[in-house]
């Protein structure tokens, strides 16, 4: 029995490719999410794409596009609600999070069966189609190019927004851009591991990498390696042990985090 045996099937190859694309995108965007302490917002975005998915499903539109629109609306909504600091950002996130998720559940309850929509909540990486894969790839390229182009501005606004503002970099506008990039990454991840587990793919690999190094480029590189390898290992576990793929992927990520955490504690103690 070869480890690569499952990849003789087309659906496994598509799943592995989807894991690569989404893993890279989530790890890169997630690094900023973790370092800027925006974990709650990514969790919220993962949940608020639900109404977009349901509306697209009911109207037979592209579900990816439905999720994309809902994600971007959420990102802009949070930025708009908290723009004058009259409403704290976490409050704005809480409002958008619950409102959109409730709307999604309400719309789902109107559909006769929950069965078709269950994969929205829990993901179905094994059912990724070629069209979805192409769309993810295009979105991923856009997100990665934007991150590379804005790297120094995003880096600066992450640790010293005041200096950024003084020299003319609009930190608020950049936050909007980052929120939209997070929304785009979330849309890809939702198809893989579902609404419920998406934030794990954004948060856990960068959080693990940040425990291992104090250099931003290395944090990003390690996060990518952890995200992609966790996705592939999770896929193999799901194939051989016949368990849910999304949950397997996230649990492999968590094991990586546990190992990194333990290694750090040992290093501190020695």
């Amino acid at each position, binding site marked *: 029995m070869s480890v690569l045996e499952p990849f003789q099937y087309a659906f496994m190859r598509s799943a592995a490719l989807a894991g690569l694309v989404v893993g890279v995108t989530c790890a890169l965007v997630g690094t900023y999410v973790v370092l800027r302490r925006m974990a709650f917002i990514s969790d919220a975005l993962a949940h608020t794409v639900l109404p977009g998915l349901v509306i697209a499903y009911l109207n037979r539109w592209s579900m990816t596009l439905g999720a994309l629109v809902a994600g971007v609306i959420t990102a802009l909504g949070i930025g708009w609600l908290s723009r004058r600091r009259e409403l704290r950002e976490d409050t704005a996130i809480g409002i958008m999070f619950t409102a959109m998720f409730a709307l999604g559940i309400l719309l789902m309850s109107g559909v006769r069966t929950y069965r078709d929509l269950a994969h929205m909540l829990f993901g179905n990486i094994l059912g990724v189609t070629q069209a979805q894969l192409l769309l993810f790839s295009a979105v991923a390229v856009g997100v990665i190019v934007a991150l590379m182009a804005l790297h120094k501005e995003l880096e600066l606004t992450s*640790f010293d927004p*005041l200096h950024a503002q*003084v020299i003319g970099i609009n930190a608020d506008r950049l936050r909007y851009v980052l929120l939209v990039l997070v929304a785009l990454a979330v849309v890809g991840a939702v198809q893989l591991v579902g609404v419920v587990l998406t934030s794990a793919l954004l948060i856990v690999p960068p959080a693990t990498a940040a425990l291992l190094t*104090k*250099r*931003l480029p290395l944090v990003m590189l390690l996060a990518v390696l952890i995200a992609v390898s966790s996705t592939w290992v999770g896929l193999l576990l799901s194939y051989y042990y016949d368990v849910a793929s999304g949950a397997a992927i996230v649990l492999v990520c968590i094991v990586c985090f546990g190992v990194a955490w333990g290694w750090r504690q040992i290093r501190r103690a020695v």
Partner: protein
Amino acid sequence: MEAHAVHARYAGAAHLALSGVSLRVRWGTCFALVGPNGAGKSTLLKVIAGLLPVQAGDLRVLGHEVGACRAAIAYLPQRSEIDWSFPISVRRLVLSGRYPHLGWLRLPSREDWRVVDAALDQVGLRDLAERQIGELSGGQQQRVLLARALAQDATLLLLDEPLNAVDVTTQRIISEVLHALVQRGKTVIVATHDLDRVQREFDDALFLSEGRVVAVGVHSVRERTLQWMHAANAFDVSHERA
């Protein structure tokens, strides 16, 4: 730099943080902002830096309206304003002083890195250039911020309590660097509590209390500060007795 009857307020705050503040800072001088905590020193620096809008009054920085000459202004915030746990090196932080000269989407050149290393040399931190910024002491972190201002080659430097809780070496280096900058025609405005230093090293000063100007000029500021310290001590003693 000239301010006339400037009023400013933080978003959502009921009271004005600055109320009718007027001052004039000549080019190539070292200017001190003195006053108790909450007097408005940091607020005034933020208004000059363009971080807080002027609600009423007139403020001209380097002869222009606020925000018109951003590359020429370096603002050194209190250390608590920066996320020191962020995973970047000292050298990379100082490089951010070059960003106004780089513009969007451009990578730093060899010349930019040379300027960064020269700035680190000037504040005595070249050996720590590759350290993560959180691994430095408070004084070293303050020097890194000063190195960034040097790398920026700013005309106006705004420093928010740079000498607060730092070691003697850092105090000496900061004083020397600021003196050298003023000699080169740069203008420096510093929020400080150090009265002796104000008298020794500053050309002009202003005492703020509850967002208003109470005294102007090094001598008047010294008198006013001593009065305030005396009153504060008397208040403390009466409280202890009570």
